[in-house]
């Protein structure tokens, strides 16, 4: 049977849109043998099938779970089998059908290598065509014994509750999965919750829902649907891989096989005291099944190497305990395998469904696939007569695959060495129908051949287990065992090759003792020569050959002989025994190599998978014998399907149901006839072909969705053979796999282009809006034409100029095409784009090139003196203060000032006739900002400068200034002219009335107008006297306090005297200026204290010297004073009072000191006119007795008064009284 699929791939499904011109058009053909023609049933063609099951509702429909090939289905009662591509996991364990629903199928599998795994539990609702991995079929976090069990799931036995088929139970690597809705949703139960969940290998549900499981925790039983569990109290069931079955009659009688040991419990698992000797132990995957027979009898079927039927009887009455239910195994029937038409090494048995008793065993699965029982009637059927199907499952596990090209399209010698199923050969490997000869049974390992013969190694025999046979081409004719073996044992159970031919009759073989060659395999005895015995690598396997100039160079790998563990590579040139094995350098950091291949004609050219070490797994290629290794990144990407699969997993299934983990790479091979062609393969990720020597690759199978694409998935390819005998350049690539048998891929070589972009386009620095040109250089470094179908930019600032010829653009080998890219930046900064180049490059159909350009920008910097503080400023009409704001552009593009505004009318931005103001990079301008306040107080504003600076379109300059209060900016100006008249009193007065007039001036000055100068002039008239006085006082005020220092000049004319006199004094004062009253203190001291204003002379009494003339002078003399003053308001703003009183220190001889005082009451008549009444005593002229005046007067102008006391800063004048004086006589 052959199935053909024509595929056209550019990688995964997403890559299908690529231009097709560079793609290989591949015809995929399954060329597995449909049957074995070997009379020994241990020669077979199905590969191992772990479990087989019959659809109860449609018994013609049968399912098989194969070891490495996925799920198979027969719809004709098991005569022909076909692969179910919709079930993606390929390493499968069990399959079961809902007994009430043919469409509902459950399957279990081991880890599928996916980062997001779909293995473990899969459910089909359409009879196996399509499958889903329910989301709830993943255990909870931290539930499993190790987290990797959750990430790399595996599942084992399936049980459907016969009493309630929607209840499904699955043993997994993380406890028991339970569904109560026919597989729609799942929950996980851990029967030993004191530790994390581990392996449950098998489960049986029986007698109304009793659940019994076995596995790493031994046996456990639940009678409540998996909520609680019981286990043995003593004599427990051992742990491990297991199968479990229940007696059809007694719920407490169970049978289990763990490892190779068979046990029975008769108390529901509380103890397992009964064991049966295994008639033929091996432990591949043993099983136990029970089958109800008539009456109280049932059969116990047990399978290991063979299948046996034990006769069992249920006691009467049926009670727990008692004797073992079955006869000793020495009395069991069987073995019913090899001698009954079926391959040894059991998998499972399926009985005809529906019968309540005496159901015939219908199918048996084993290492040979599926076998049908040709006996269909009881009781004869219970001694089965098996036969192989017409078309077995195609699930061969190959240990070797060799091809010998022969002239013509059809003749092609292909050889298979299969685990379990022996050696196959054909001479029609290129034909539409491939006829295979299953020459030998059992375990076939290595094969090698030439045009006339084929060598195969087969296991297992007594004595030398693995033996080497020589057959005719295509494994025809006689096939004698060789007569002379090289030292050591022939290598076995390894994927890497151990046998090859290097010239006519000359063969090389690796044994457990080294590498040996013979120049004549037909000689008797055969002469074997060891290559480089003294330097022979340990555990050499993986034999490969490259021949140049007739000299062979042999390569071997030391260790890791399945290709999934790291080992070292070694080379040996020639066949001399005295040569030396030389190690091929390992890539830096790697632990070693996994798989490898060498160019048949260039020993310097190798391709390999590197494993371990810091770099992790990679595909690498060397052209200089390993001196340098190049990472094949395109192939790396395909090996994981872009991350769909892990490059290296931890617990992936390995040989014989081990879970040791594996790397993806399983295959690399050079085409001996065309150095451009290279094939590679991944365990889960499929088959890849390179047509340019290894730098560009194409996925030619479908590992993702083969069920929907119709393109087969070929898992675990290990071997390849190229043949170029097809018509019109047709190439046949035959592949050997582990688990899916041999395949043929037919295609024509299409040179693959290889896109390279040496560098992204570059652009000069620009400013927003400027247009820059860049060149995107796209090169083709490989043989096929590179067709660029489009280039797009993710950023519209970058545009691709469509070439004059438009797209697509074809670039020939070793040419580059400079696509023009325009950049028009709109926003300053580094602008980036993803240039997406779509081409027919098979590995980079979409190439992303990151490009960038720099857009400059203006950067505004503002500078203002004094931090924008205008200081104190007293406004006045047309008075203002300007401050310069400097705007600097320290960017790389012109700075545009587009607006200026002030937040306060006190600060005025300059008026600009036309915006914008343009400032070149590096330049600056000064803008005058005017401070023209109208009111007092602290002023502030923000000057907003609007620019095109992207970092901040509006620059804000803080402005501030202060307008001092009025007493600073407009201090009061005190000026008045006073006049008063009134009578005098006192006996010593110099006239009956007085008239006086005065002028007063007070001005403040200095900081905050705290200083003041006061000047006064006064004229007083008395009928007997006239006085003129001028005084000046310097004042300083600090808060409430005012001090003054002044001087007074007075000219007095006392008419009674001969002449007028003048005097002066100095005075100091201190005032406390309260809000409604002021107090003051003063003191004055004469400066020019006296002046002679008259004289008289008389003759004195005569003396001996004569009569003296006595002269008496009239002296005008100052009177020093000290006293206090007060000014207070009587009626606010209307009446007030000024008063002073002084102590007067007289100088007249014999005169007593006296006192003086003055009191004046004033009333504001008009703001500029004040009337007053005053009375004073001894205010100016001091006589022997007090004299005074009472006056009324007017004051025109303004002079400090109580309402001025609200002025907090300005001096308010001194109230020091007039200069006091007196007249007296003195003798000169």
């Amino acid at each position, binding site marked *: 049977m052959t199935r053909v699929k024509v595929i056209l791939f550019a990688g995964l499904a997403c890559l299908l849109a690529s231009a097709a011109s560079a793609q290989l058009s591949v015809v995929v053909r399954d060329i597995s043998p449909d049957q074995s023609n070997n009379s020994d049933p241990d020669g077979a063609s199905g590969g191992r099938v772990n479990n087989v099951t019959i659809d109860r509702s449609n018994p013609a429909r049968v399912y098989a779970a194969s070891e490495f090939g996925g799920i198979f289905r027969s719809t004709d009662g098991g005569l022909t089998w076909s692969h179910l591509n919709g079930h993606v996991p390929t390493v499968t364990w069990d399959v079961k059908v809902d007994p009430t629903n043919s469409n509902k199928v459950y399957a279990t599998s081991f880890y599928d290598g996916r980062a997001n795994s779909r293995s473990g539990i899969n459910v089909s609702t359409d009879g196996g065509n399509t499958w889903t991995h329910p989301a709830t079929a993943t255990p909870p976090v931290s539930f499993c014994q190790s987290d990797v069990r959750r990430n790399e799931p595996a599942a084992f036995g399936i049980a459907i509750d016969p009493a309630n088929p929607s209840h499904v139970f699955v043993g997994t690597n993380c406890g028991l999965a339970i569904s109560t809705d026919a597989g729609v949703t799942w929950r996980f139960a851990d029967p030993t919750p004191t530790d994390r969940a581990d392996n449950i290998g098998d489960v049986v549900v029986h007698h109304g829902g009793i659940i019994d499981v076995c596995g790493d925790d031994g046996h456990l039983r639940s009678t409540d649907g998996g909520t609680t569990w019981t286990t043995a109290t003593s004599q427990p069931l051992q742990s491990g891989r297991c199968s479990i079955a229940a007696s059809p009659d007694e719920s407490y009688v169970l049978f289990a096989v763990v490892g190779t040991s068979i046990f029975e419990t008769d108390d529901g698992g509380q103890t397992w005291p009964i064991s049966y000797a295994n008639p033929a132990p091996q432990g591949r995957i043993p099983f136990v099944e029970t089958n109800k027979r008539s009456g109280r009898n049932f059969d116990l079927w047990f399978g290991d190497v063979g299948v046996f039927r034990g006769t069992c009887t249920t006691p009467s009455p049926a009670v727990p305990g008692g004797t073992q239910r079955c006869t000793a195994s020495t009395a069991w029937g069987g073995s019913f395998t090899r001698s009954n038409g079926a391959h040894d090494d059991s998998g499972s048995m399926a009985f005809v469904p529906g019968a309540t008793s005496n159901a015939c065993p219908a199918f048996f699965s084993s290492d040979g696939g599926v076998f049908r029982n040709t006996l269909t009637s009881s009781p004869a059927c219970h001694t089965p007569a098996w036969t192989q199907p017409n078309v077995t499952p195609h699930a061969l596990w190959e240990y070797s695959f060799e091809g010998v090209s022969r002239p013509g399209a059809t003749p092609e010698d292909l050889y298979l060495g299969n685990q379990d199923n022996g050696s196959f050969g054909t001479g029609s490997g290129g034909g539409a129908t491939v006829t295979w000869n299953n020459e030998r049974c059992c375990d076939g390992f290595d094969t090698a051949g030439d045009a006339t013969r084929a060598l195969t190694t087969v296991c297992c025999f007594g004595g030398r*287990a693995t033996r080497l046979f020589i057959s005719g081409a295509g494994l025809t004719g006689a096939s004698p065992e060789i007569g002379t073996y090289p030292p050591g044992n022939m290598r076995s159970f390894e994927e890497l090759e151990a046998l090859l031919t290097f010239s006519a009759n000359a063969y090389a073989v690796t044994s457990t003792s080294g590498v040996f060659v013979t120049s004549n395999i037909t000689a008797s005895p055969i002469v074997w020569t060891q290559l480089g015995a003294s330097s022979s690598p340990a555990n050499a396997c993986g034999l490969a050959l490259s021949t140049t100039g007739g000299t062979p160079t042999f390569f071997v790998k030391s260790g890791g002989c399945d290709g999934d563990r790291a080992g070292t590579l070694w080379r040996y040139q020639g066949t001399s025994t005295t040569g030396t094995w030389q190690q091929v350098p390992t890539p830096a950091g790697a632990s070693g190599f996994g798989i490898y291949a060498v160019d048949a004609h260039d020993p310097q050219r190798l391709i390999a998978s590197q494993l371990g070490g810091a770099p992790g797994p990679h595909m690498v290629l060397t052209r200089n014998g390993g001196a340098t290794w190049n990472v094949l990144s395109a192939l790396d990407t395909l090996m994981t399907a872009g991350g769909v699969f892990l490059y290296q997993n931890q617990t992936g299934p390995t040989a014989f*149901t081990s879970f040791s983990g594996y790397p993806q790479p399983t295959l690399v091979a050079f085409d001996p006839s065309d150095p451009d062609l290279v094939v590679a393969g991944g365990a889960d990720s499929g088959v890849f072909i390179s047509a340019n020597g290894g730098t560009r690759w194409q996925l030619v199978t479908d590992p993702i969705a083969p069920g929907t694409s119709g393109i087969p998935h070929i898992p675990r390819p290990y071997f390849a053979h190229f043949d170029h005998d097809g018509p019109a350049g047709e190439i046949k690539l035959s592949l050997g796999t582990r688990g899916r048998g041999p395949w043929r891929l037919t295609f024509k070589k299409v040179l693959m282009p290889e896109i390279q972009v040496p560098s992204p386009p570059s652009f000069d620095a620009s400013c927003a809006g400027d247009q820059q040109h860049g060149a995107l250089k796209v090169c083709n470094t490989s043989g096929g034409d590179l067709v660029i179908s489009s280039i797009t930019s993710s950023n519209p600032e970058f545009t691709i100029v469509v070439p004059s010829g438009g797209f697509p653009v074809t670039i020939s080998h070793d040419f580059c095409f400079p696509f023009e890219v325009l950049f028009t930046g709109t926003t300053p900064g580094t602008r980036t784009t993803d240039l997406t180049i779509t081409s027919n490059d098979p590995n980079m159909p979409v190439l992303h090139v990151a490009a960038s350009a720099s857009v400059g920008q203006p950067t505004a910097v503002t500078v203002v003196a004094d931090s924008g503080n205008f200081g104190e400023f007293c406004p006045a009409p047309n008075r203002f203060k300007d401050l310069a704001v400097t705007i600097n552009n320290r960017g790389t593009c012109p700075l545009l000032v587009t607006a200026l505004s002030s937040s306060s009318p006190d600060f005025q931005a300059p008026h600009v006739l036309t915006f914008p103001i343009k400032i070149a990079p590096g330049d600056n301008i000064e803008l005058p900002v005017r401070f023209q306040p109208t009111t007092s107080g602290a002023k502030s504003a923000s000057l907003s400068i609007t620019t095109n600076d992207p970092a901040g379109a509006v620059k804000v300059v803080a402005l501030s200034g202060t307008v001092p209060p009025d007493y600073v900016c407009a201090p009061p100006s005190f000026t008045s002219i006073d006049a008063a008249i009134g009578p005098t009193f006192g006996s010593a007065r110099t006239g009956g009335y007085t008239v006086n007039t005065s002028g007063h001036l007070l001005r403040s000055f200095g900081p905050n107008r705290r200083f003041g100068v006061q000047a006064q002039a006064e004229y007083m008239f008395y009928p007997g006297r006239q006085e003129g006085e001028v005084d000046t006082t310097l004042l300083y005020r600090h808060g409430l306090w005012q001090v003054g220092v002044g001087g007074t000049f007075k000219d007095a004319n006392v008419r009674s005297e001969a002449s007028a006199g003048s005097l002066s004094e100095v005075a100091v004062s201190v005032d406390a200026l309260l809000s409604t009253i002021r107090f003051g203190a003063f003191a004055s001291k004469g400066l020019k204290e006296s002046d002679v204003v008259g004289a008289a002379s008389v003759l004195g009494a005569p003396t001996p010297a004569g009569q003296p003339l006595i002269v008496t002078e009239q002296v005008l003399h100052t009177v020093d004073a000290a006293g206090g003053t007060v000014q207070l308001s009587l009626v606010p703003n209307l009446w007030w009072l000024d008063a002073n009183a002084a102590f007067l220190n007289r100088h007249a001889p014999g005169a007593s000191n006296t006192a003086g005082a003055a009191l004046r009451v004033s009333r504001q008549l008009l703001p500029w006119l004040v009337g007053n009444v005053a009375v004073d005593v001894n205010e100016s002229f001091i006589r022997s007795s007090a004299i005074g005046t009472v006056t009324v007067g007017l004051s025109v102008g303004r002079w400090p008064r109580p309402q001025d006391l609200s002025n907090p800063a300005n001096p308010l004048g001194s109230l020091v009284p007039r200069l006091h004086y007196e007249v007296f006589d003195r003798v000169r």
Partner: protein
Amino acid sequence: MRSCWLQFGILAVAFTVFDLSPQTTALAEQAAQRAPQVESRMTLSIETFCSETKLRTSNARLRWSIPQTALSGIGAATVSAARQSLEATVYKNGFEKNLLVSLPIGAATADRPIVPQAQGRQPLPRAFQLRLIDVQQPGATAEATAAGEMTAVVENLEPGVTYTWRIAIDTPSGRIVSPSAASEARVCPADMVQGTAVPRRKK
């Protein structure tokens, strides 16, 4: 068979199986009385493989190490100087239940293996029919500088059975054991060509 056991008896003196039948309860109780102390600084790793010389024969290679600090604590100068034994169980919590086999670490080869000795007339379960066929001790240099690592190869594991292993060391102050490590015995199939049989181990 009897002659075989006699042949190996000189070397295989103390391979002991605990609690394989009710008759061994006294021995189990005795063992339980000396509850071992787990020495967490000890490391133990298991590698399972199929015999390269015997078909259908499942083997395990055990590697363990004892840090020098732990050695001094038990009064042994080197790891090889310690009184060690290899213990295995195939039962859930088998060590705690004394469902185990124990054999002393000593000189062993494939031709002169250390084998278990059944208690009384009880046959050994298949899973416990182990043979210690190789013991590698650290060299003198390793002994001088560090505790080193020891390796032992155990033959004839029951395929598919989950073994839990540990190393036990008897010291004057009591028994210490390594942390346990579990592994499933490899299945080593061999399809025998018609008319031939699996070669038997030489007796």
